[in-house]
């Protein structure tokens, strides 16, 4: 009886061992299939025509380069910036292969780190475009207009909202000497042009402001000096800029030296003011 039990026990153990061995052999055989189903490689071009995709090996086009790693780790599909040196166009997040295909110059740096790819606002007539300085120069050259490029505008939203108007105001800029900020009373267009001509000037336009406005913190100050323009008498500041129409009662009025006052709100409207010692609004027809 004991002999029979022992024999059956040996048989069961043997069955178990054989069973495990069989299972092991089956698993070993299945393993490559399981792992290859999950495995992706970097493929230079897929059968559908997509460039630089992490995909299954079977999706890779014949003759295309492939690597048993992610595309970012390869030399041919590494991401960088594609540059057209002639036209000045730059494209970020571009794999090397896509750039090489169109004879572009590929740089592994991000576009923000490449000086020639720095974008700014380009003013061509009434149009604004957010492009590189080279692209702006090419377009301006084509239209035969002066290039006005503002590199301080760093996004397309701000650029689209920017203008190149004939509106007047204070153009505040740096002179590079110990006097700090100075100012010119001019148009928005002229101010942007000044910035293009001398990017170190950091010229900034403040519509409707006078150069003597305290908040602009410039070296231009109020004076009692006057000058004639368009048959009116105007105040001038210490920088020689025009201010508002001469009004003796407002020589020290801070508000009068801050923003442009419209002609209709100036002194003596409706009178000729001939030989007036107090008001510069002249009207010869009255």
């Amino acid at each position, binding site marked *: 009886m004991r002999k029979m039990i022992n024999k059956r026990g040996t048989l069961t153990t043997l069955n178990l061992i054989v069973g495990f061995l069989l299972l092991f052999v089956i698993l070993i055989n299945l393993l490559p299939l399981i792992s290859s189903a999950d495995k992706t490689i970097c493929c230079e071009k897929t059968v559908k025509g*997509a460039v630089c995709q992490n995909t299954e090996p079977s999706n890779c086009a014949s003759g295309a380069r492939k690597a048993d790693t992610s595309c970012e780790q390869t030399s041919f599909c590494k991401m960088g910036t594609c540059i057209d040196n002639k036209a000045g166009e730059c*494209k970020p997040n571009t*794999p090397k292969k896509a750039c090489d295909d169109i004879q572009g110059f590929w740089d592994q740096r991000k576009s923000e780190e490449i000086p020639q790819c720095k974008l700014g606002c380009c003013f*061509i007539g009434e149009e604004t475009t*957010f492009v590189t300085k080279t692209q702006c120069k090419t377009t301006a050259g*084509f239209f035969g207009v002066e290039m006005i490029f503002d590199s301080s505008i760093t996004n397309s939203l701000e650029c689209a909202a920017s203008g190149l108007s004939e509106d007047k105001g204070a153009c505040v800029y740096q002179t590079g000497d110990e006097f700090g900020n100075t100012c010119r009373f001019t148009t928005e267009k002229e101010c942007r042009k000044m910035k293009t001509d001398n990017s170190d000037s950091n010229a900034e336009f403040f519509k409707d402001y006078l150069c003597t406005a305290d908040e602009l913190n410039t070296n231009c100050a109020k004076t009692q000096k006057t000058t004639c323009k368009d048959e009116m008498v105007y105040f001038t500041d210490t920088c020689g800029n025009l201010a508002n129409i001469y009004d003796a009662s407002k020589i020290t009025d801070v508000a009068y030296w801050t923003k442009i006052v419209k002609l209709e709100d100036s002194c003596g409207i409706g009178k000729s003011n001939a030989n007036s010692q107090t008001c510069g609004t002249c009207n010869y027809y009255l």
Partner: protein
Amino acid sequence: MKERGRNSRFFSDKRGQVTLFVIIAIVIVALGILIYVFYPKISSVFGGGQEQNPNEFIQNCMEDDLADKIQNVSVQGGSINPEFYILYQDEKIQYLCYTEEYYKTCVVQKPLLTKQIEKEIENAIAPKVKTCFNELKTSFEERNYEVNIIEGAVGIALMPKKVVSTFNYSVTLTKTDAKKYDSFNVVVNNNLYELVGIANSIIDWESTYGDASIALYMDLYHNLKIEKRKPDYGTSVYILTDKDTANKFQFASRSLVFPPGYGTEVV
């Protein structure tokens, strides 16, 4: 009786005059029609009239073909024959940015889009350029000119509000004296430059962050209509239309796609 006879001659004279006037009128009208139909040939035969300038000739000959090719390129994502595209409303629309992986932003497929489009149009119009210059030769030879044409480079430039093609062909026309033309320009008014600029910006967004917000672009560019269609799971077809000119640019992108059912799991 005498009176009657005079009257009868008067009437017969009058009828004769009317017939004469009718004949003259018919001749005048016929001449008018002939001049209208055969004007260029007549003017060349008599050696007078306003001769068409070679620049005008090339502009007239090329502009329809150029406009067609611009239109083709614009609706197919910047390619005349898209290689990697999605079929949407019977149009092959080129993917400009694509990833087939989930959770990943797309990989730029067509960098330097402006340059690529210029090249595509350039190649597409090349046969027509040759035909037009051959026609120019024939046309001027018929007018007794000696024509010498030296082929040159063809260039396309996308510019604000226009597409400019330049043909650096050298044309010499000789009759009594020689006149030389060194370059020819054909300009088509089109907003492709602006639309490609916006497409580029959307691609930058898609390749950096994923799905682009079209509302933001429409807020910014009031003359622009942007539609985003989803013809299949994960693919976006962008249709940019200039409201003022109806010029259109469309392209496809697949970026930051989540697996079906993602975000709908019940916890």
